[in-house]
């Protein structure tokens, strides 16, 4: 139970909500916050895509939804998987916002701001400066000044808790973890893909080790200048670059929707092609393949796509979660089914009891008929048929009741 407590209690604190801004100096930021969220998972957009009707969702969310019903969840207009278009700039914007959110929130909190008027101004400038960075305005001198003002023991202490996405496996974790052993382990575990991943990280011209040694060499007190450096990097990046996916994506083709009329052997062949496990029933295999296609295609919509091995990991996680949930989830319906089955049994017994006389009359009649007609075989089969009819009636009665 100690471990399980975590699911609800520990994670509840980590859930961010647009209403977090309502107590800040800029309550209107909650509008931006909620605009950058996917309406399906209510989390920040991940690899956002645009539907043909103009609505935006996480690629994976809308793909999962569309594979069930070809409708936009917002306007209910017909939407097809083939009509989805990635929105790379929005991906960059959302990533920036979610990465800087906790810091931004801290700096515009009212209780902190009330301390002094100077800090107030600094914080205002900080925000406007950050927005300018988005606009690709280069004011490195200004920003360094402002960030130094912003430096406070509170901010630097909490730096450890800032989550970042591992560039290799895409998992969110504290920055210190990534800088530590995680990234090496991540790379070691798949030497073939190391080259590709390295390319991804070295877009700015430095190697991974340089990139992180720069970070780790800095003490926490120096972190403000570190931020400046980071931001100047962002500033130097041209807006075209912020919309460029790694070249790797271009070499990959989207997977077509699963053809469910495919023979099991061919389905297995197809799954083997991507190293997808092929155990389980046909339905399980189809579900697994469908989810993989969704994951695969959604990955191609991301600014930072991961390699197939990680997709397979996610697929496995997805499946274990479904299997874990299954017993809990299906128990009540199973109970209900048992109840209805029991009820059906009781009802059929009652029905039999009620009509016992009628049945025996029928049997008597049939027997007398048999004697009269001397054709035993024919009348016997008639009898059976009659009983069958009764059975059918009884079931259809139950059915209508259930339907109601």
């Amino acid at each position, binding site marked *: 139970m100690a471990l399980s407590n975590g699911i*609800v209690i520990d994670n509840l604190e980590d859930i961010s909500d647009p209403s977090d801004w309502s107590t800040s100096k800029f309550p209107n930021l909650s509008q931006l916050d909620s605009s950058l969220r996917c309406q*399906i998972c209510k989390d920040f957009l991940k690899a956002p895509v645009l539907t043909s009707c103009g609505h935006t969702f996480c690629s994976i969310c809308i793909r999962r939804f569309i594979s069930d019903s070809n409708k936009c*969840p*917002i306007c209910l207009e017909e939407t097809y998987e083939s009509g989805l278009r990635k929105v790379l700039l929005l991906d960059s914007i959302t990533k920036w916002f979610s990465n800087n959110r906790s810091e931004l929130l801290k700096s515009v909190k009212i209780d902190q701001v009330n301390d002094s008027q100077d800090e107030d101004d600094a914080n205002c400038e900080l925000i406007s400066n950050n927005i300018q960075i988005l606009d690709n305005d280069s004011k490195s001198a200004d920003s360094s000044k402002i960030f130094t003002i912003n430096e406070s023991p509170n901010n630097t202490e909490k730096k450890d808790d800032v989550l970042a996405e591992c560039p290799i496996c895409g998992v969110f974790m504290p920055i210190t973890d990534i800088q530590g052993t995680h990234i090496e382990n991540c790379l070691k575990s798949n030497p073939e893909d190391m080259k590709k991943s390295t390319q991804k990280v070295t877009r700015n011209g430095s190697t991974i080790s340089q990139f992180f040694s720069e970070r780790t060499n800095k003490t926490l007190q120096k972190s403000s200048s570190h931020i400046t450096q980071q931001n100047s990097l962002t500033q130097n990046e041209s807006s075209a670059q912020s919309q460029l996916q790694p070249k790797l994506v271009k070499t990959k083709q989207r997977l077509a929707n699963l053809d469910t009329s495919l023979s099991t052997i061919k389905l297995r062949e197809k799954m083997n092609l991507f190293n997808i496990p092929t155990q389980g029933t046909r339905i399980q295999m189809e579900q697994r393949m469908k989810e993989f296609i969704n994951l695969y295609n959604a990955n191609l919509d991301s600014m930072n796509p991961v390699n197939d091995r990680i997709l397979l990991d996610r697929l496995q*996680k997805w499946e274990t979660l479904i299997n874990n949930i299954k017993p*809990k*989830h299906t128990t*009540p319906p199973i109970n209900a089914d048992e109840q209805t089955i029991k009820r059906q049994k009781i009802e059929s017994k009652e029905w039999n009891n009620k009509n016992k006389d009628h049945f025996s009359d029928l049997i008597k009649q049939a027997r007398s008929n048999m004697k009269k007609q001397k054709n035993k075989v024919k009348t016997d089969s008639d009898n059976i048929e009659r009983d069958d009819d009764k059975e059918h009636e009884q079931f259809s009665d139950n059915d209508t009741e259930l339907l109601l």
Partner: protein
Amino acid sequence: MSKNYNTAHKRLLRELKELIDHPVEGIIASPVSDDDLFNWRCVISGPVDTPYEYGIFEALLTFPKDYPLSPPKMKFLTPILHPNIYKNGKVCISILHESGNDPLNYESADERWGPLQSIEKILLSVSSMIADPNPNSPADVDAAKLWRDNRDKYTAIVKQQVLDSLGIKLIPKA
């Protein structure tokens, strides 16, 4: 955070937080236990100016693993007489019906389930359904008949259920 949880987990946690931070009048809902986010117990108070007023009705919400793509199921644990609630407590309401699952087009698509709906919206819809029964698609035919033909008896039964739900026993006059 939640790297080991899928969309359904995160979404349910988010909705729980929302319900805690911004409680809605007449509605309480939370997971049955800390280790199971997929079964929720909720309490709906009887709507004002209806026979159900003052009643406390407990229900169980069971979420599918692909929530919010599929709707949860809702079942009342407290006995409640209502044309749109089955005798076993199961709730029959359009918001809990999967979208694109209605060949008769009886319910328009926008009032059925979609990922944009939420637990809060479900419970509010159920609350307004309790206040305003829809006798045209009854789940409990007997209740619907009683509601239509013998409203006094219907009201009396419901009021007794409300007392029962509060654990109050009236002592008959000697």
